[in-house]
């Protein structure tokens, strides 16, 4: 199979996965609880009110029709072109378009996720390589211990501790929001404050948004780094024993060239796969991190909607999480194929 046909097959395979995902989200939100509208009002509304809301949201139609509307709404290209976001239905709290609400908060989550992933993978890989090079030494044990402990720390606890140290006691860094309230945020291009402020040459906004990002992304990054430490270490240990590494050493190549140029290159592929898999965990952790740091992203949105029992919005937000994960895993698989020539054969 050539690279091109692999790419096409992989993209086509995403479709049934997505459909399945949409179905599951729909089932969880609509079938499990019984009636979202009744749940929304917590038995306090009169039947007329419940009925009118049901009609307004299209929840009075048969389940199968609702399902079709949900799926076809998502792939409605005209709607997407007219609004700039997919049709995810209307919110139960204010009848706004859920898609629009989600697209306005999503960049905050994306920005947090990107920087956390960079922190997690870079520290994880560097520490993992260092540990594998000094196998069973004190350094190795220390790094492994660190990797294990970070895995066991609840992300919000670490966040609270950081807030306490760097925010409350030292006053170094802000403990909430994406940018200081007194600084006007950069005009929206990508929605990522750090990118937008650079594009507009807005130095103050850039520094302020980096400052606000530091604690949340460090929190999330550190918690996730443990997995990368462990995986890199194990893979490097296995790779460093292979003949081609010995051969490279025998040819007199420097330690660093052998480690990073030869061994890490080979040990990197499983780590890349792990980055894709961990992206889902990252988004989950982002929900808690956003709550800890009052970060106005998708996680904060979903929690806010849970407390107002806005089931259409929850469904939309969960769908969005699913779409992002599916997209990331597609990209990772394509990258994998690009880096690993065996896939192309």
């Amino acid at each position: 199979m050539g690279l091109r046909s692999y790419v096409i097959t992989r993209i086509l395979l995403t479709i049934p996965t997505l459909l399945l995902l949409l179905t599951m989200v729909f089932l969880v939100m609509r079938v499990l609880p019984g009636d979202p509208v009744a749940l929304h009002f917590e038995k306090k509304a009169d039947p007329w009110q419940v009925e009118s809301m049901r009609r307004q949201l299209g929840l009075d139609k048969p389940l199968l029709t609702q399902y079709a509307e949900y799926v076809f709404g998502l792939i409605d290209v005209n709607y997407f072109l007219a609004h700039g976001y997919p049709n995810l239905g209307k919110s139960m709290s204010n009848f706004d378009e859920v898609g629009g609400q989600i697209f306005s908060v999503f960049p905050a989550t994306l920005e947090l996720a990107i920087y956390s992933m960079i922190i997690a993978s870079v520290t994880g890989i560097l520490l993992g390589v260092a540990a594998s090079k000094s196998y069973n030494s004190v350094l190795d044990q220390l790094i492994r211990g660190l990797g294990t402990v970070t895995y066991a720390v609840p992300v919000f606890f670490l966040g609270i501790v950081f807030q306490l140290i760097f925010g409350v006691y030292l006053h170094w860094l802000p403990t909430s929001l994406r940018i200081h309230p007194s600084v006007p945020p950069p005009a929206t291009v990508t929605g990522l404050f750090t990118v937008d402020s650079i594009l507009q040459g807005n130095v103050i906004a850039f520094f302020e948004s980096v400052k606000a990002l530091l604690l949340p992304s460090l929190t999330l990054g550190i918690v996730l780094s443990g997995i990368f430490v462990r995986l890199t270490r194990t893979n490097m240990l296995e790779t460093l024993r292979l003949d081609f590494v010995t051969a490279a050493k025998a040819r007199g190549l420097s330690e660093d060239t052998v480690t990073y140029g030869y061994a890490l290159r080979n040990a990197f592929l499983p780590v890349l796969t792990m980055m894709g898999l961990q992206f889902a965990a990252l988004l989950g952790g982002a929900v808690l991190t956003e709550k800890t740091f009052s970060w106005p992203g998708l996680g904060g949105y979903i929690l806010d909607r849970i407390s107002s029992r806005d089931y259409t919005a929850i469904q939309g937000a969960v769908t969005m999480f699913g779409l992002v994960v599916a997209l990331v895993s597609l990209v990772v698989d394509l990258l994998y194929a690009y880096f690993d020539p065996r896939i192309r054969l």
Partner: protein
Amino acid sequence: MVIAGIVIVLAIVVMTALAPWISPHDPSMEAGPVRAPPSFQFPMGTNHLGFDMLSRTMFGGSVMLQVSAFSVLLCFLIGVPLGLFSSYVGGILDNAVSLVIDAVYAFPGLVIAIAVAAVLGPGVVNMALSIAVVYIPSYFRIVRSQVLSIKELTYVEAAKASGAKWYTILSDYVLPNVVPSIVIVATINFADAVLTAAGLTFIGLGVTYDIPDWGWDLTNGRQYLSSGAWWIIFFPGLMIILLALGFTLIGEGLSELLNPKLQR
């Protein structure tokens, strides 16, 4: 590593089980001044209602232990038989089940747990259910990958030839060889369940305030941090870390023992 993990977990279980006898105060009764810092009388201080934090710490593990044990049991009872059966039968059934499981597996676990918990409402059983939904795929996948290779082995072939029924083959010949991997998944699952339960409590989908719970104390104590009352969150947080760490150590230690590639 494994032993250290077992010691930590056992110590916490024993402490929680003995809490009614060894705790100095009632965990949900005013025992002293409000937000008193750690002292000789209150070694872990008191919370905003004057409850003794040491007593709350001793009692507080029970919710997490129950939730994680129940969710692991559920995952085990559903994931393992499903994995065994589906992969042994193979064909369309296996493909269909795998597709569904993989879709769940790829999804952000905490988001599923949040969505399910939001729908089911708070409580120990509901928390366990929402966590179980997330981790069933891990069991299914590990069982499936093992069965696929085991069922081609000659001793299974021999059992088939001697006329053993499919359920005898699965339970007596295949299952024993899958158990080690399941145990590893289960211990990691325990650690994750503890952390997920803490997370669900943090966002308000956990237990109510009248039950002493580390997750609740940690969440609730947050608002008193600015007044400097660090002890309200510190000790519950530490206990959650210890419990999750105990399970992680067991799981990591076991998987290292069972990974032949790392043994020279």
